[in-house]
């Protein structure tokens, strides 16, 4: 009886453990395999717009013919046309620089929140999340309004006599960076705040007690202890920014093309699903690098410092 119950419990416990795997298989692995498959196909004027299409009715022979028709040509194409490497590089550049700015802005912000009175902290965190209450698209359109020629920003600058002719903010890299930093700031601040908030205040007192002035204690104690938050925040910003489409499309100029825009163009304008899929798969491979880096860092911190 007891044995039976225990067996039942462990069975249900295992089922609970299976849920994330099922989820990932259903909503990540399966779509990924489909995209991977399309990326190995050729574009065609058909429905769907690529060949080969798997014919279940043809049986074993059909399967063999299907695999024979797959090719890596699209990937070779990504390397041959300068458009693709350039947009990849641009994406990585924008993602890296935006993440750096986000860290520079987000760390002091998170630090300030974590050091403010306990009562106030939930309110401040709430304020950081507040922009999420309006749609992302609407917020980006609002930035168009602010940054355009007769927009709010130029208005203020003109009135303060900082500039005497309106500045062309919109359709520039500056506008992209403004949009990125604005939109992704919560993703940087929240993990940093979580790391800084759980830090024991008495550690700083211990450092001071051992002869370490407050400024230096930041570098010796606070910063090292917040590194997991730094890594998480950078990852949470870098990866989606690298694939970002809306912000560069709406705020950026035509001279800047990020990979997300190239992908959109291939998919919607050129109707070239296979190339679009190859772009997506290659991007995923590219973003695996920082992921693995983060993984290794976590491993190291689990094994312990010096």
């Amino acid at each position, binding site marked *: 009886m007891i044995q039976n119950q225990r067996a039942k419990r462990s069975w249900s416990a295992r089922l609970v453990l299976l849920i994330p795997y099922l989820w990932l298989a259903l909503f990540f692995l399966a779509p990924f395999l489909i995209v991977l498959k399309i990326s190995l196909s050729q574009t065609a004027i058909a429905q769907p717009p690529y060949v080969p299409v798997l014919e279940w009715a043809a049986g074993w022979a059909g399967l063999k013919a299907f695999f024979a028709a797959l090719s890596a040509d699209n990937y070779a194409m990504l390397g041959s046309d300068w458009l693709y490497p350039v947009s990849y590089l641009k994406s990585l550049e924008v993602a890296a620089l935006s993440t750096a700015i986000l860290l520079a802005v987000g760390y002091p912000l998170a630090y300030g929140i974590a050091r403010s009175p306990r009562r106030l902290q939930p309110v401040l965190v709430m304020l950081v999340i507040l922009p999420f209450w309006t749609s992302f698209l609407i917020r980006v359109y609002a930035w168009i309004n602010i940054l355009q020629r007769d927009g709010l920003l130029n208005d203020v600058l003109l009135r303060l006599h900082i500039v005497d002719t309106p500045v062309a903010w919109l359709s520039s890299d500056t506008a992209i960076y403004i949009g990125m930093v604005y939109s992704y700031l919560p993703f940087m601040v929240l993990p940093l705040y979580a790391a800084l908030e759980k830090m024991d205040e*008495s550690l700083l*007192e*211990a*450092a001071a*007690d*051992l002869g*370490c002035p407050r400024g230096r204690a930041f570098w010796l104690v606070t910063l090292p*202890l917040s590194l997991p938050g730094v890594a998480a925040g950078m990852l949470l910003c870098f990866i989606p920014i690298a694939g970002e489409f809306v912000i560069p499309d709406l705020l950026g100029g035509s001279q800047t093309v990020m990979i997300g825009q190239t992908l959109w163009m291939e998919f919607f304008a050129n109707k070239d699903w296979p190339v679009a899929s190859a772009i997506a798969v290659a991007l995923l491979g590219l973003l695996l690098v920082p992921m693995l880096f983060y993984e290794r860092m976590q491993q190291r911190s689990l094994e312990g*410092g010096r």
Partner: protein
Amino acid sequence: MAEAATQEQTAGDRPLVRFAGVAKRFGQITAVEEFTLDIGEGEFFALLGPSGCGKTTLLRMLAGFETPSAGSILLDGEDIVAVPPHRRPVNMMFQNYALFPHLSVAGNIAFGLRQERAGRAEIAERVAEMLALVRMPDFGRRRIDQLSGGQRQRVALARALIKRPRVLLLDEPMAALDKKLRAETQFELMELQRRLGTTFVIVTHDQDEAMTVADRIAVMDRGRLAQVAAPSEIYERPNSRWVADFIGEVTLLEGMLAEGAIETVLGRFRAAMPAGGRKRDTVWLALRPEKLHIAAQRPADGNLNAIPGTVFEIGYRGDMSIYKVRLADRSLMKVALANTSARGRASFGIDDVVWLSWPPEAGWVLTR
């Protein structure tokens, strides 16, 4: 407790630490008030008092984490109130140890020396020395979360001692240890203190701990100093009912002071006159349970004070039994009886009529 220190019951002419009229207020709360105290060089000093009486606040003011609202704190004769914590030659062992989780054991211990920009070789040597001192020579590379509570406590101790502070501050250093380990650690601390000769100031709410380790104890009551003296002095000659009651078990009999005696509703008991006590003053006779004798008959010796009562309750504690005896005025008096015979429990039962007796010098008269 060192023999020399038992005799020398003051901090000497030139105290190492002096609190002069120190007060500390947090908004409406007064944590420490009119606090004046000297601590001598090389003393093992305990700040003892119930939870919330301001012990930690006092220690934090000495370490530099709190600024007194009034008064001054002198170290070696110099006012240190304006000196920031990182420049005070004082180190603290924190109540929760506050070890750096991102550093190894050796990294934690070396932290203080690194701030002094000591050389690599010197750091390595002194870290090894400290690890040996706390008997953890092979633990240098361990992570903090791989240590037991007792080991963390030792690492915290080593980290605080490596800079050879003038005063080592210990805030409830044994609160997180279990009883057995606590007793061992107390003796280790005493041994360490004697060997290093460093002045130790320990904060504790545990009177047994303070009595065991300290040369002198300052008993605190709601932010004020109640009494400062050697442990035996505090136990045998408390200066107030509050101290007598806080330290150990005691029965207090209220009465009126007479010539060489005190008159109570239960009779007249002979006792030594308190200093400064005048006849007809209201006073209290403090009697420690272990100083009383319990017997079935009234003792023959007329010199002894004696009082009859009935056994109300017996608490068996292994090494001794505590009897609560109900007196004529229905108050209870506690008597301790050592269980020296193997059969343990002594031969009195509940409701037995007994006589309690004590020689006049066993009682202590309190005037407040």
